[in-house]
């Protein structure tokens, strides 16, 4: 049962979050690319994903966590401050870019940490 090693809810949740940061980076790149496209509406990860993930993690059901599918959606909370109906704001978009980068860093460290702990448990020495 080698899969059992990688089925802890925390590890699966960190993996899912890593997918989310990649997807969010995709959305932010699209927003930055369309900074000046008239009528463009900014994209982000669908807002209900956080609730779904926390529900799945509380249920402690590995299957439910790995079945989650993060999706992109038009950000309906963003309002346009410009005449052309574009809802992207350069500053807040760059803030989100950096925030997302730090989140990604945190998640890779979480995953690395849990892998190193597994290795320690298998080999019995901290290598």
């Amino acid at each position, binding site marked *: 049962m080698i899969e059992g090693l990688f089925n802890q809810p925390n590890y699966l949740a960190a993996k899912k979050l890593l997918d989310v940061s990649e997807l969010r*980076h995709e959305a932010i790149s*699209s927003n*930055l690319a369309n*900074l000046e*496209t008239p009528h463009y509406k900014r*994209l982000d990860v669908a807002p209900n994903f956080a609730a779904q993930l926390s529900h799945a993690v509380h249920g402690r059901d590995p299957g439910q966590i790995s079945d989650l599918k993060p999706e992109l959606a038009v950000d309906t909370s963003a309002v346009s401050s410009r005449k052309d109906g574009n809802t992207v704001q350069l500053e807040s978009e760059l803030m989100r870019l950096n925030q997302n980068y730090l989140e990604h860093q945190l998640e890779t460290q979480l*995953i*690395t940490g849990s892998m190193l702990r597994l290795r320690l448990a298998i080999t019995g020495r901290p290598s």
Partner: protein
Amino acid sequence: MINILTGIDSTSSALNAERIRMDVVSQNIANVNTTRGPDGKPYTRHQVVFEAVLNDQFASTSPPGSRPLEVRVPRVELDRRPARLVHQPNHPHADANGMVSLPNINMYEEMVDLMSASRAYEANLSAVKTARSMALQTLSIGKR
């Protein structure tokens, strides 16, 4: 092919589009005093049109409203505002009343356009930089 740099399609299309925009603006600035073109008329201001394009990579997974978009310049259009008329009777291109038609270019407008193009270019470059660091970070998973 796997895409190791996330969002590179959108970003590179935007870098390309902003570069075209900068080219067009510098062409306008260069021709701010051109009173005769190949067609015998004063130079007319050019302007770029931006358009969002759906990214095919996500076609199977997301509905059309929520897919990352690329940007492109479908065409460069002419500005339809009339030419500036200046009274300069000794100019070789002056008409019977001594008026010369100068291009419909406003220098301040062009400078602002140039600045916002270069800001947008920088923003997209920082998106690529971040994507690169994220990819390196991902590749180092499992190392201490």
